[in-house]
């Protein structure tokens, strides 16, 4: 109920809302809390089912980018993650295939379906990253690509006649592959992550983790975490976007203990203890990819796909995209503001 003019002396004073056309309308204020359970079932909770059905019908988009030097196992890992031949491996270079002169961006899209859920998966590969002699600014094409996707989305959103569902090509997640040197991060790694953690969700991953023993692994991870912290690199899940205590404790655990995930990828199956598992066969044993004692692939997979996939998309949409949009519109002087809040000089042509 909100205050307004009293109608007449005859009636009890009633609070009314009388909106004037085209002015900032008064929105109904503080809601009154009522527990509906007291008097019988209404059916409000069916909205969950309705929403679920709808989203399953429309399907999901997911765009994942893999960045790292050649030979770190990027394509293999993506294939292992999505259990299919999503990216073609560049199995060594032939002499005929030249190393690309600049970083190329290759986006390949597939549709995968599981449990009635259709997902349009796009894997964006970046061959040539960090491979030249002089690698200065090799992250720039990547940054440009990411911003281009935001630009595309913005253009669609700003149209007068908009599509029902704007195609989402924005990069939701960027897996950055760290070389398992065992020492520390390389300058290229730091530079890349510094620049790109502001525009996209970066998940650092230690590639080919089977080259390190358990102690080396823990030490290396600690060092990497420390270096990232010292350099102020906020990787996903970012601390500032934790919504509530539950999220915070969950994400803290991941941030401080598990990340960066030390992974091993493989698309070959072997027989271990009567089961067929994905693994790598070596003279001294078989490394099982999905075994948590061998490597952290399963953690990465659960993290990215089973628990945080929607969150990755939401952070991209609500935070990175909005930041880009705000910056872009500010540079241009902004879209027509109907409330004069951006520039005093602008005369609204309403």
């Amino acid at each position, binding site marked *: *109920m909100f205050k307004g003019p009293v109608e007449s002396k*005859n009636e*009890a004073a*009633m609070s009314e*809302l*009388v909106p004037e056309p*085209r002015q*900032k*309308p008064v*929105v*109904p*204020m503080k*809601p009154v*809390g*009522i*527990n*509906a*359970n*007291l008097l019988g*079932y*209404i*059916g*409000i*909770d*069916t*909205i969950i089912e*309705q*929403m*679920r*059905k*709808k*989203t399953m019908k429309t399907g*999901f988009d997911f765009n994942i980018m893999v960045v790292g030097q050649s030979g770190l196992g990027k394509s293999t890992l993506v294939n292992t993650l999505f259990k299919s031949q*999503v990216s073609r491996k560049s199995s060594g270079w032939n002499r005929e295939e030249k190393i690309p002169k600049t970083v190329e961006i290759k986006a390949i*899209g*597939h*549709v*995968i379906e*599981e449990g009635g*859920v259709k997902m*349009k998966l796009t894997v964006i590969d970046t061959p040539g990253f960090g491979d030249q002699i002089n690698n200065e600014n090799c992250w720039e094409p990547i940054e440009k690509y990411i911003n281009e996707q935001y630009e595309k989305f913005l253009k669609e959103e*700003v149209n*007068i*006649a908009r599509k029902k569902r704007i195609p989402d090509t924005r990069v939701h997640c960027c897996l950055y592959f760290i070389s398992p040197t065992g020492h520390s991060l390389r300058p290229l790694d730091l530079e890349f992550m510094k620049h790109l953690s502001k525009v996209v969700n970066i998940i650092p991953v230690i590639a080919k983790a089977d080259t390190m023993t358990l102690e080396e692994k823990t030490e290396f991870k600690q060092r990497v975490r420390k270096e990232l912290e010292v350099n102020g690199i906020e990787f996903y899940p970012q601390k500032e976007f934790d919504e*509530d205590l539950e999220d915070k404790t969950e994400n803290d655990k991941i941030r401080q203990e598990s990340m960066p995930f030390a992974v091993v990828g493989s698309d070959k199956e072997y027989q271990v203890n009567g089961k067929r598992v994905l693994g790598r066969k070596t003279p001294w044993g078989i490394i099982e990819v999905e075994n948590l004692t061998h490597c952290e692939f399963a953690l990465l997979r659960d993290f990215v*796909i*089973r*628990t945080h996939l*929607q969150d990755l998309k*939401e952070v991209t949409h609500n935070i990175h995209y*909005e930041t880009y949009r705000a910056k872009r519109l500010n540079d241009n002087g*902004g*879209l*027509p503001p*109907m409330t004069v*809040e951006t520039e005093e*000089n*602008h*005369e609204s*042509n309403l």
Partner: protein
Amino acid sequence: CMHEVKMIRLFLPKDRDEENCKNDGYRTLPLSGHVGFGSLPDQLVKKSIKQGFCFNILCIGETGSGKSTLINSLFNTTFDDPVSSHFLPSVKLRAQTYELQEANVLLKLTIVNTVGFGDQINKENSYQPIVDYIDAQFEAYLQEELKIKRSLFSYHDTRIHVCLYFISPTGHSLKTLDLLAMKSLDSKVNIIPIIGKADSISKTELQKFKNKIMSELVSNGVQIYQFPTDDETISKINTIMNGHLPFAVVGSTEEVRIGNKMVRARQYPWGIVQVENENHCDFVKLREMLICTNMEDLREQTHARHYELYRRCRLEEMGFRDIGPENKPVSLQEAYEAKRHEFYLELQRKEEEMRQQFVQRVKEKEAILKEAEQKVHAKFEERMLALQEVKLKLEKKKKVLEDEIAMFVEKKANAEVLQSQPSVSTPLLSLKKDKDRKKYVLMLVIRGSKKKFLHISLL
């Protein structure tokens, strides 16, 4: 004999292109194991539950058509809603927001009621406030969407998702006001027509009434909300329900004991009308359709269809186009830039003008001041000259007087010298001297007014 050559049509397995077309041209990839993204809808749902849902219902109907009672019955609570009188001078809208919780779902329900609808003698402006209210909610959302720093994900959505239009149970047909109101609202909101207080119509009359209403709506081109029939699981029930429109409902805030249960009902001397009995009224159907089956679709239609239409019209109204004058696609940015440039030039021009004016005025003022200054100067000079003249005159007079004093002093000195000497011809001399003396005394007396002169007493 001739062998009949049968043309065997080869039925090729599903054409790859056809499959690809369904997926926007993307190849379908078979999975060789369990990946786990089947939990995506759950992740989405979990987030939505955390955020809560918004649902906004607008009830339009004449005073006393049973709106508040129906809402109370629908949501099984008593919303705080004072009864309104019939004597309101114009139609107003009253919005109240409630938070309902069922299981773990939090629903922010906003009920907007029309107050005074259909009561006035002159009903010309009855539905305009309603249209304005709906537009105002769209406007608020559009403003938020166009902001530079916006927070759409935490925005409290007040756009009306469904409009329940209450038709009076006359049994004949729609009133003109009903037709006009629905016609003006059908492109802005999802309308579900409802016959309120349906227990005043008998079953046979009811069916005739419903048919009449639907045919009138169709013949007047009113587009009411159709329950969606594209999803196989609900299309069957939705189609059936579509045939039952408009729903004839009865609401009640009282409970009556039937058997061993307390049910919502209205008790008459001739019987009890049970609200939740499907034979008695369509209340259950309405609740099913409105809440259990189509709430999400109503929200989506509001956003995807009605809001987009509003937005398009509004932006076009403001002069933005997607296609520029040479039929080339013009982005909103460019159009805006052009307008902004225009305004900027205008602003500069005005600034320049004002500056010119200011400079002009300053010059004028300066000129005036200078003139005045000169005048004052001239006066000053004049006065100075006059002063000089007077000074000169006085100097002259002073000189003359001083000369006379000197002469007199000299003569006095001579006279004294002469007196001390014995002389022969004194009488003449003394007489002369007396004459002189007198002359001098006379002269002194005449000039006695001037204080400067020494008062020489010779007597």
